[in-house]
Structures are given as structure tokens and as C-alpha cells.
């Protein structure tokens, strides 16, 4: 079901790139423009004085004042630190848990495999977002409200990750496994020396997908964080830009840009890897 993109895919299928009419090319471009319009507007509003927010003037003066006031009004540094911490924590745990489980499901036959697989796949349907009420109760009992761990726990075993690793490991040639065995490696050593290196591109792909998901995740962190000690960027942004206090667009746009800039910059720099990662992670 999962197919890893072959490196030469693009070359082989060059002839697939068909000719399209000028009208279609134009439409494609217009749609693209529409799609980044919100981002373009954010840049426009953030870098120009407030009176130009609602009126477009090509010669409007540039300013950084909104960034200054946004930065002063909300502890973005703390938020960013939390987001980084939470995303890293989740990803690290996901990688370990999914590798172990994926390996067991791919290469260690055992009784009840079908049931376990079904139990895992259930999480694809019943995402942690649906269970905020019960999960909040659990974390309150564990005294983990308002901690990074609390934000991360429900996501650490990822059905998607387990499934992805199982598919990847299943494609590693059994011969490599046997050879390592002959050399006297135990199961974990085989996993570490044979399977993990083979799956590097999949790890990268999964990592990028996971990071962009949790960087942008909002509802659960909103529920489970109380203070700046654990509040991530998304929740901070929601408070910062809450319409209750009267909307100040230029400052909000500046704040938005501050919040998205790390991920956006990473995305622009590693564009190819990002897109290919998402493609790789897709089930076809």
C-alpha cells in the first residue's frame, strides 16, 4: 500500500507532463495567487503603517513598528521555546515507540497480530482531538496539566507512524536480517543496525509531517496548558489575537509572521524535502 518514490520516477514519467492550454496555465497561476493571498496580506499589513492596512498603496512607507509592539505584547520567545520543546518531545517518543511497534508487526510473527493491528488502526479514526474531555481527566489525575509531557502524551503512540514503519520494515530484505543474525546480533541490535538505517528517508518524511502537525496543533494544547510555562505558539497566538480585546490587524499580522516564520523558513529552505516527505508519507 505504501510505495516509496523511486528516485528516477520523475525522469521516467517526464512524458506524462502533458501540454495544457494557456487558459489553464493562467487559471493555475491565479489559483496559486489566491492561495497565498492570506500570507501576502500578512506581509503587507505587518510591514506598513496602520493606515495602509485597508488601503493598498504601492508607495506606502515600510515600518517595523508592528513587530516591535507584537514582540513586546506577548512572550513569543517563551511560546516558541515551548513549541520547540513539545514538538521535539513528541517526535522523539514517536520515533522510538513507532519503530519498536512497527518492527514487531513487520518481522516478529506472534499470535493476535491481526487484533493488535486493528487496535492500532483505531487511532486513525479516533484521534486524540475527539477525546479531549476524557484525556483531560486522565492528565489531571496524573498531575500533568500545564506541562510539555501533558501536551505530548496522547500523541506519542501514533497509529500512522506505527503503520508507516511496519510497511517500511516489511520491505527490508530478509537476507540482511539473517546475515546480521548469523553474526550474532540480538533482535534489538538487528533492528538498530539493519532496519533503522534502511528506513532513514522514511524517518525524515515522518519527522517533517509530525513537526508540521504539532507545530500547528491547537485544540488539545489550548485545553491542557494554563500558563506561559507550557503554552505553545498556537495557543499564545489565539490569546494574542483574540477578537475580544479589539482587533489590531497590523500587530496581529506581525505576530502571526513571528509565529509562523520558523516553520515557514524551514519549509522554504527544505521545500523539496517537505513536499517529497508528504508524498512519501502518503498511502497510495
Amino acid at each position, binding site marked *: 500500500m505504501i510505495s516509496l518514490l523511486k528516485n528516477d520516477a520523475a525522469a521516467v514519467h517526464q512524458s506524462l507532463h502533458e501540454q495544457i492550454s494557456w487558459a489553464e496555465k493562467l487559471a493555475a497561476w491565479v489559483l496559486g495567487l489566491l492561495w497565498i493571498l*492570506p500570507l501576502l496580506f500578512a506581509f503587507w499589513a505587518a510591514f506598513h503603517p496602520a493606515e495602509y492596512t485597508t488601503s493598498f498603496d504601492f508607495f506606502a512607507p515600510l515600518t517595523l513598528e508592528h513587530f516591535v509592539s507584537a514582540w513586546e505584547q506577548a512572550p513569543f520567545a517563551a511560546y516558541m521555546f515551548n513549541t520547540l520543546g513539545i514538538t521535539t518531545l513528541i517526535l522523539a517518543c514517536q520515533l522510538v515507540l513507532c519503530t519498536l511497534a512497527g518492527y514487531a508487526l513487520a518481522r*516478529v510473527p*506472534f499470535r493476535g497480530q491481526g487484533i*493488535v493491528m486493528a487496535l492500532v488502526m483505531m487511532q486513525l479514526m*479516533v484521534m486524540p482531538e*475527539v*477525546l479531549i474531555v476524557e484525556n483531560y481527566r486522565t492528565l489531571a489525575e496524573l498531575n500533568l496539566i500545564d506541562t510539555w509531557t501533558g501536551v505530548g502524551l496522547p500523541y506519542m503512540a501514533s497509529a500512522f507512524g506505527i503503520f508507516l514503519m511496519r510497511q517500511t520494515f516489511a520491505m527490508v530484505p530478509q537476507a540482511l536480517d539473517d546475515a546480521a543474525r548469523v553474526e550474532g546480533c540480538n533482535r534489538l541490535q538487528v533492528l538498530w543496525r539493519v532496519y533503522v538505517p534502511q528506513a532513514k528517508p522514511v524517518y525524515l518524511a515522518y519527522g517533517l509531517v509530525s513537526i508540521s502537525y504539532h507545530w500547528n496543533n491547537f485544540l488539545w494544547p489550548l485545553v491542557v496548558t494554563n500558563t506561559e510555562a507550557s503554552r505553545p505558539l498556537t495557543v499564545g497566538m489565539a490569546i494574542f489575537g483574540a477578537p475580544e480585546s479589539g482587533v489590531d490587524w497590523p500587530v496581529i499580522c506581525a505576530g502571526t509572521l513571528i509565529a509562523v516564520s520558523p516553520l515557514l523558513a524551514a*519549509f522554504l529552505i527544505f521545500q523539496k524535502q517537505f513536499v517529497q516527505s508528504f508524498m512519501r508519507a502518503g498511502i497510495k
Partner: protein
Amino acid sequence: MNKTQQLHAWLLLLPALVMLAAFTHIPAVQTLLHSFYDNPRGGNPASFVGMENFQYLYEDEVFWQVLWNNAWYAIVTVPVSIVLALVMALWVNARLPGRGIVRLAYFTPTVLPMIAVANIWLFFYTPEIGLFNNVLNMFGFDGQNWLGDPDFALPSLMVMTIWKEAGFFMIFYLAALQGLDNSLYEAAAIENASRWQVFRRITWPLLMPTTLFILINALINAFKLVDHLFILTKGGPNNASNLLLYYIYENAFSFFDSAYAATLTSVMLIILALLAWVQFGILDKRVHYR
């Protein structure tokens, strides 16, 4: 299957299974149980109330409206984002000048946090000073009170959802398109088939598994994506744009009514179970994955 191997398998699975049980399976069962209890009050523990919560649910007009809204939300956003995603994928897979940039533009919403961009969309939608109405006025049309009119509030949310989702789904189509077998297309070229015929007879059937995968994802997202409600409408006006998950959040964390929130969550679980049954029970048998 020797004993050590069995043991190893379970040991490897243990951490993941514990986490899954603690945060997916047990809470799901707990939710169902709690929906038959009321809220603990003033030191008294929750007591069993039978079907009372479901009775309340049945009589709760807001619930039915929210359910109805969510159905509409799914019925519109899912097909539209899928079709758009496919069109986008076909375009950026074709010979298009500046293909990389266009692809980037389509994909950008995927890496932007919905909650932050919602504020920018709020500006687009605002009457009097907002972008959409100003553009409409420029062309001589009347603007709308997009978020303040019950007829437009939900559609306005849908537009933003589609914007967010289409580029994401495009990627899956793009991956599928690049993996397609060339020989069929060469045969079609020899037979001088029209572009539409090629699409109907070759591309679309071959993309079927991808479409199904996206379909399921999109359906789940239709119940999961509520971030923008927090900024744009808060479910208003008069619940015209309220969605099930947001209503659950309101009940649990604004009204402190966790019993009713559990009841609503149970409904959500039933819907998701139905979706799963449709996927694995019916569709999977009809469409053969490779």
C-alpha cells in the same frame, strides 16, 4: 512461533500499546460510560442516570443543528477540496511555467497554523472594511456580512477549510500521478484519445485508491477541524456555524458540563465508527489496493 519470539513481540509492542490504551481505547470506553452518568456536584460523586443525557440530547435543538451543520460542512468541503486537489495536482504535474512556485503556493496553507491565519481571514470577511467586500464593491457588487449572516457564516468557514485542505491533498495526488505506469498513456497517445478520455479511462481509475484514502482523511478532518471557529465565529450567529467538536469543547470547558460533553463525544465516536465500517467493510472490498 516459539515462546521467546512471542515474548519479544509483545515487549516491543508494549510501550506503544500502553499509550494507545491509555489515550485512545480506555478513554473511548470511558466516554461511553460517562454518558450514562451526571456531573459530580458539591462533593457528591456522579450518579447513574440511565438515558437521561441522551434524552436531553434528543431534545437539544442546538445539538441537531450542530449535527446538521457538520453534515453540510462535510458534504461540501470534502468533495470540493478533493476535486480542487486533483485539478491542482494535474496542473503542477503538467508543463506549467513556474511549476515549483505554483506548487509551493498551493502547499503553503498546510504549514501555516490555522489559528493564526484565521485572524487574517477575519480581516477578509469583515464587512465595511474587509478585503472581500472592498473587492466586490470595486466590481459594483454589494458586500455581505459574511460571518454575521446565518446563511453565509458556515459557507465562509467552509471556504477557509477548503483553502487549508486542498493543497495538502494535492500532494497525495501528485505522488500517485508520478507513480503511474507510462505505457498506458503511450497506448492512449497512439490511439489519439482526447485528454478527457485519457483522464476518464486511465488516470481517474488508477487514482481511485488515492481518492479513497484522501476521502477518508477529508471526512475525519471534517469532524476535527474546528480551530478557525475560535477566531472567526465562535459557532455563531445563533449556532449557524457551530460544529460538533466545538460544541463538545464549549460544553466541557465553558459550561463545565462534562457529562453532556461525554454524551456528545459518544455521538462523535458512533459517527467515526460508521465511517470506519464504511471504509473497511464496504469500500475496501470493492476497490483493490495494490
